[in-house]
């Protein structure tokens, strides 16, 4: 019998695969393509305290083996989420991870407080969104800032607190440590890497926001490295993400140190990517006679 279930911050996941924030809206769209009950968890679109319009289009550009996006956190706000979206998706037997972003530390605290009283299972604090002017990424690139925001939000957060890290940093280890030491129950990484494309015919950036976040297979090696490095420096569990397209990719992240894995951009190409990744992990385990998926985590034999 293969065991796929994972205990993550005291929450039971039936398997290590979650959808990541921002590529899965609030779940229902891909719910038309597969049974959401199959998922370990669903991370919902990033929420802000007030509704947010987002950036003007174009918001997406294709790049070699990846995409740039500059959605800019369009969302109905945390209250509307709790009222309109959560009840719909709470019906599924899967964990719900709320993803939050704020302009100020106070906003993060406020959202953590509100969501702690709600039916979500875990809270992921996005301090790494490259697509908003205030807040977002600047909270996530300085260890001191990470320490400060984590310790403050932790006070209000009654659910497991996952801190989502930015890859746009020199030393992910220091950032990871700062989050852990200040109360993070888990880490998730990586968010997108800041990038740009220019249309050489019009001389205009393709994204109306000029720059956007790079995701997809192109960034996978960077993500695997960062998960590996973070794992070396903290003992809290990690959700690994960045370019996972199939089960083998997910296994690579787990070997690097991830306890859960997140599937994002892959869904755009293959709407059943999340469940295909679960199947792929199972196949790998069968092939290699591995009984417990947890034994993969951190299993890399580094030189």
């Amino acid at each position, binding site marked *: 019998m293969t065991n796929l279930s994972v205990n993550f911050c005291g929450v039971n996941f039936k398997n290590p695969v979650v959808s990541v924030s921002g590529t899965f809206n609030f779940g229902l769209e891909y719910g038309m393509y597969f049974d959401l009950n199959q998922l370990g968890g669903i991370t919902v679109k990033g929420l802000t305290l007030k509704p947010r319009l987002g950036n003007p289009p174009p918001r997406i550009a294709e790049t070699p083996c990846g995409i740039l996006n500059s*959605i800019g956190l369009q969302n109905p706000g945390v209250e509307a989420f709790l009222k309109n979206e959560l009840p719909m998706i709470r019906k599924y037997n899967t964990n719900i991870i709320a993803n939050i972003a704020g302009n100020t530390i106070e906003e993060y605290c406020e959202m953590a407080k509100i969501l702690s009283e709600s039916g979500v299972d875990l809270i992921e604090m996005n301090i790494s969104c490259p697509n908003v002017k205030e807040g977002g990424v600047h909270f996530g690139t300085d260890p001191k800032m990470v320490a400060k925001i984590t310790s403050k939000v932790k006070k209000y957060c009654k659910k497991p607190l996952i801190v989502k890290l930015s890859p746009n940093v020199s030393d992910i280890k220091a950032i990871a440590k700062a989050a852990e030491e200040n109360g993070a129950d888990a880490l998730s990484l990586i968010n997108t890497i800041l990038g740009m494309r220019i249309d050489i015919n019009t001389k205009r950036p393709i994204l109306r926001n000029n720059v956007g976040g790079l995701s997809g297979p192109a960034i996978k090696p960077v993500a695997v490295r960062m998960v590996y490095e973070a794992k070396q420096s903290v003992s809290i569990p990690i959700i690994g993400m960045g370019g996972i397209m199939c089960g083998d990719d997910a296994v690579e992240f787990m070997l690097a140190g991830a306890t859960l894995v997140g599937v994002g951009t892959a869904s755009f190409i293959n*709407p059943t990517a999340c469940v295909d990744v679960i199947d792929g992990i199972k196949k790998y385990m069968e092939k290699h006679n591995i009984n417990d998926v947890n034994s993969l985590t951190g299993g890399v034999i580094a030189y």
Partner: protein
Amino acid sequence: MLKKAHITKLIKKEEIAKDTFDFYVEAPQIAKAASPGQFIHVKCGDGTFLRRPISICDTEGDILRFIFQIRGKGTAELAQKEVGDYIDILGPLGQGFKIKDKKAFLVGGGIGIYPLLMLAKKLKDPKIFLGFRTKDLVTLEEDFKKWGQVIISTDDGSYGRKGFSIDAVKEMIDECEIIYACGPIPMLKALKNLAEDRGIECQISLEQRMGCGVGACLSCVCKTVRGYDKICQRGPVFDSSEVIFDD
């Protein structure tokens, strides 16, 4: 029943104008479910990453027809497919035209004419205004003629009327109770204004760069009275009165 990506087989392929390809694929489920104005999301090949949105042009039994112009890497790759090859297609997607029993004008410009064919079939005697840059790009004239009166304009006057379709539309606007349109933004803007002036209904199909194509990523928005709406899910066809064209 759950939706899925369909592996379809290319059974007929024709270059109907320079760099313009007419594809017929075997896609029973898509063909059966499709309604005019909806689109498909196509995996063009290994050399591109995202899918590409293409309008459904027509269906006939199990056969799905779509027409595309080479614009970049993806469409160029798709054009390489040969009869017998398989194509991975998601669809039908989005909300198409809402068919009303009114005297209809169909207005298409450039690649915007393709989604109108299937619509023309479902309407009673529509007037069909097709605009092209020049004679060489004129396509589907015979196909459309089966379903209504066709008025062709070319920007340079090399075929049909000279100028934009909108001029022809304006001349005959008294005969019109509803406009269905797809094409370049300036054309859609002009039609929106015209329809508002005349107080008639106008449905327009919009384009935007897409990620998922199914409403999950919020990439493909346009500005509407409600804020930013997803073109792939709420559209691609919108009531022109909802849409805000600003610049």
